[in-house]
């Protein structure tokens, strides 16, 4: 069985993996990273979205062996120094979650949208989140949260970049 070395939320793991093992099952079943849930088996719902080397991927559609040597950030690795990531905080403020099952994937996908477009329009957010399904919120508050998160993140960036 191949040996997979992967860093998840800042901790390095080495795991013998069957070649068919999905990244999401490595996270959930082997590493105890159950913050990333599974919502479908056809890569439609996006609940399992994580950042793989900084880019969002659906971890049900990546083999663990493909993540060898990579850096993975899950919803569990976002909060730091006792505070939520601005996008997590924005989801809280805007009531952008109800049952919360899609939320980990939704937050990770939202962060990824801002990589290319730090100030996305409502339309860009809706298009950008097309691969993440939510059954509770009707998306209105998720869109508002992503707008708010974007504003907070750019404020934080400005603060860092100001001498």
């Amino acid at each position, binding site marked *: 069985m191949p040996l997979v070395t992967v860093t998840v939320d800042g901790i390095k793991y080495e795991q013998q993996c069957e070649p068919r093992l999905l990244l999401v099952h490595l996270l959930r079943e082997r590493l105890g990273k159950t913050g990333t849930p599974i919502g479908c088996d056809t890569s439609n719902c996006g609940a399992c979205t994580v950042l793989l080397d900084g880019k969002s991927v659906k971890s049900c559609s990546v083999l663990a062996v493909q993540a060898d040597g990579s850096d993975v950030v899950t919803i569990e690795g976002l909060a730091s120094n006792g505070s939520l990531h601005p996008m997590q905080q924005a989801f809280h403020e805007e009531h952008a979650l109800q049952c919360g099952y899609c939320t980990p994937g939704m937050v990770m996908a939202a962060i990824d949208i801002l990589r290319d477009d730090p100030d996305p329009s409502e339309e860009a957010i809706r298009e950008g989140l097309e691969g993440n399904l939510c059954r509770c919120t009707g998306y209105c*508050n998720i869109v508002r949260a992503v707008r708010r998160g974007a504003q907070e993140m750019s404020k934080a960036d400005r603060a860092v970049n100001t001498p």
Partner: protein
Amino acid sequence: MSELDAGLIAEQIEVTGEQKQNGHEVGRARRRKEDARLLTGRTQWTDNIQLPGLLHVAFLRSPMAHARIGRVDVSGALELPGVVAAFSGRDFAAEQGSLPCAWPVSEDIVIPDHPAMAVDEVRYVGEAVACVIATDRYQAADALEAIEVDWEPLPPVLDMNDALAEGSPKVHEAGNRAYTWKLGVGDIDAAFRDAPVVVDRTYVQQRLIPTAMEPRAVVATTDGESFTLWSATQIPHVLRVMLALTTGIPEHRLRVIAPDVGGGFGSKLQVTAEEVLCLLLTRKLGKPVKWTESRSEGNLTVHHGRDQIQHVSLAAEADGRIRGVRVELLADMGAYLMLITPGVPLLGALMYNGIYKMDAYDFSCTGVFTTKMPTDAYRGAGRPEATYAIERLMDELAHELKIDPIEVRRRNWIKHEEFPYTTIVGLEYDSGNYEAATDRALSLFGYDKLRAEQADRRDRGDPVQLGIGVSTFTEMCGIAPSRALGGLNYGAGGWEHASVRVLPTGKVEVVTGSSAHGQGHETAWSQIVADSLGVPYEDVSVLHGDTAISHKGMDTYGSRSLVVGGMALLAACDKVKDKARKVAAHALECSPDDLEFVQGAFRVKGTGAQKTIQEVALATFTAHDLPDGVEPRLDSDATFDPQTFSFPHGTHLCAVEVDTETGLTKIRSYVAVDDVGKVVNPLIVEGQVHGGLAQGIAQALYEEAVYDAEGNLLTSTMADYLLPSAADLPDFVTDRTETPATTNPLGVKGVGEAGTIASTPAVVNAVVDALRPYGVRDIQMPCTPERVWRALQ
């Protein structure tokens, strides 16, 4: 909340000046307590649960809609690595019992035996026939392929009309008719005789797949004596009773836990084959077992919703006033009657009159067996179907009479000064103000301006036509008065329970029989208790969803939790205060009548002397100086059984642009003005409306479970069953009017299903309205581009 969470989440609460002064929690847009764990990945989903020695279960499911089962050979599976056991339905025939139906709606109803794993015959694609138990979920899935089954195909039964025809193949030996249920009030024949206007239509409520985002999952374990079952369920309490009755495991040896549950929408209001079998497997093997469905497995085997053919007619005077409404339903039960399968259409039976006055009403429903997945409750459960029919008919009536659809409704609805009003079906609507909600909606929508634009586009022959849809709806929530349920032959009561405990340190622990799965009860219940006891919101925590902690309850469905459970909570708080008053009076050496309760303290009227409720709690803990006859500890519990239903209402307006060349419908604007009475948390209420709208719109435009001619489910994956994404839905304009319910102390009405119930007819009315100049009078849901385009040809 843990210390970490308290640090993580910076509270930003919008508080009005008035609220600040009074310290009122009810009415505040509190951000939710639940969010901390949900946002940081520390949620306890059932599939997260790991136990030492946990085994994984996988089910072999029928590839045929209808077949007799010949030989089943599991021996091949047993030889594979990691496989611990494998069983067929025959191995469990003696112990699995029959999955329960709790709602035998008529005396002559046919309730077929429903084995958790099929024994002799399968009746829908996806029905479990065998299972494998292995040390790893991949190995369990692999081993299913080594099981051999000999099938003897039988003819599928897929169409309800065909199923009832003479000579149809039978789903069950007793035939394909499950029941017929009738209700008649007034002289319906007189209403239709010589009526100036009759609108007669047949609508089809397509079959839907509820699709909660969290797939079902079950974990079961035993120590040899007692059993614990975790399940992604809405109904831990009901489930415990039903599992005890089904499996014979004594109720007092069975604990059911619904940990964090990722949505339900009715789909987790069920007693499932997998829950029964996981219990039986852990009993047989002595090891903990887990089963988690794949989404494709779920599409096949989570109960479906809707699926009715509605033949509806309405008789009216020439001025549009309704004389009577007649409803004939065929309701597809699917292959078996599950927990409340036959009762779902009856929940709509009392709602076809909507908000309107009439002299006669006639309803009949025939439940029909087919070789498909059983249907059962899906968000709204009967009421969306009823509301769709009456609201579509009202638009058709307006068109027949050439009057505005708002005007035709005005001429028929119950006026605000007429409440309380007893409807034709005998329900007493306690309060409402349809005029106010409609006026508000019209103004937010810009109704007149949009009508002008519509006229302009029609005149110009614009290929993109504008349609305006109206839905003025009500629904019944607060399920339910136990006596009313008894009258409908339902197998349980409709009460709810709560416990309130003020702990020695003054913190408050609340136990509720409601079982939230996204609704935010931990937040809303804390707000209610904080106000009632005068304690800080942060000092209240809410426990739920575990029968060992919450020992009584009727769970969460039918927009009942606040209207019923919230009242149990208030009653428990009142009992706590009654006891605390006695203890405080004793300590303050005065009569209980001399005390007033203000901001969490009992004050002797006219003096400064007081005891806070926290001080009283400590005194009841030490119990050093309690008045005679008062027991230690400051806690209480209460059970509330409502006397009547509650009736939220609202006016929804939808504008669509329909491209007549491509058939594509785009929602341009959607205004929802809901009246859910008093509001505990406006943020949560708005969220419920938003989500409800999305699901109702999805029925109108996107979703449909499709079986082919052999009975295979074509929409068995998320790739085939079209759930709307953010890109498919508009921003919603929502607002509220507030006519308090008069039947409960908080004045609340329930909000969980309103959006779903109201929006489907609003959208379809809009699509049909856009296409009226082309002679279109109806489009079968979902109004896909292809269906719209075909309707135009």
